[in-house]
């Protein structure tokens, strides 16, 4: 019963979007609070860890809701639609730059596995930085799959809708991502690390 009451009290994303379509400012405020942090994180990691670009892109993303709230079909799941719009913005940026950002640096540097002796006493911050760079070195599609699945906690089905590809493709990309990261991070994540 308390759960039912709570679910009645807290509107769903789709209900918030309905209210936004009616022009309710409070609904937009609530939706922003709900999604700004995670979408900022998504842009930050998909755009080469640039806070400035993440700022610009999250602004553009929410402006799309402001300008054309009717673009969202309230019969759909909002989070899926929202990530899909965000993903399209990122793809457009990749096309604009006509290059795959930050793909080669770590990959090249770690093509020969780092000796365990080199990283005997990695502290937590350094490890996180290293992992971050390893994730950045993934191809954009693989990185997007990995982040959506293991950081944002979306299901394979949701990711397939966001990326507009079959679930099998998502699983394949996830598998490749895990394999690649396992290679890159073996020295950091191993039992002696």
């Amino acid at each position, binding site marked *: 019963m308390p759960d039912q009451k709570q679910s009645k009290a807290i509107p769903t994303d789709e209900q918030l979007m309905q209210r936004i379509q009616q022009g309710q400012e409070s609904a937009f405020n609530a939706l922003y609070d709900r999604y700004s942090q995670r979408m900022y994180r998504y842009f930050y990691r998909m755009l080469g860890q640039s*806070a400035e670009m993440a700022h610009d892109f999250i602004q553009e993303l929410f402006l799309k809701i402001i300008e054309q709230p009717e673009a969202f079909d309230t019969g759909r799941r909002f989070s899926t639609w929202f990530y899909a719009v965000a993903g399209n913005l990122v793809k457009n940026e990749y096309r604009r730059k006509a290059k795959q950002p930050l793909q080669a640096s770590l990959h090249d540097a770690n093509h020969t596995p780092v000796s365990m002796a080199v990283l005997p006493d990695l502290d937590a911050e350094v490890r996180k930085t290293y992992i971050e760079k390893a994730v950045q070195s993934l191809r954009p599609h693989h990185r997007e799959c990995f982040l959506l699945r293991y950081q944002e906690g979306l299901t394979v089905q949701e990711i397939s809708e966001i990326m507009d590809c079959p679930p099998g493709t998502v699983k394949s990309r996830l598998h490749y991502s895990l394999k690649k990261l396992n290679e890159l991070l073996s020295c950091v994540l191993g039992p002696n690390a």
Partner: protein
Amino acid sequence: MEPLTNNIEALLATKDYEELTKAERDQVAQSCGQQEYEQLRQVVLSGQSLAEVPTPPPSLKANLMRAFRQKHQRRNIPLHTITLPFWQAAAIAACMVLMGQFVRFGPVYAQTPAIVWEANDSIWFKKVTQIVADTALAVFTADDQLKAPKEGETNIAATATAQLPTEKMLPQPVSDTPGWARRSALGTVENTPLLLMMH
């Protein structure tokens, strides 16, 4: 490395190897083995424990909220938020009624009334007193303009008007004089039932 099955991928996302049931461990053994599972699990955990990113600046939210207001301001007129004191609402309603009256009846006063003989009317009836100006106009100017009624009609008004002592009447009031003023002017005719014309 063999491709991960659905189950293994889901297990990797949620459970350490030690947390797996016997059946799940059997699945892992058939798919990739304990060592590889643990390695991949470490990778998954590393993805979940990525460093926190900076938060979006508060100014961003302020800008977006402003943009939202500007966009939707024109579309929504919050009528339910408009409140007026009763006297203001009443004054507005009264003004609207008066405006309506002016628009409807105003032009009628500005027009020259059509003249119709109404011999039975009397100045003492309210309806008639309101148009006494028109009547007076006809009475004072009727001497030379009256025409004979058509055949078979009896123009009582013409007869009565012809009998009026017009030489005793005051001059014609100006056309925009109120009805009560005209009636007062005509009142100098003593003991004479004044016949009126209506339009």
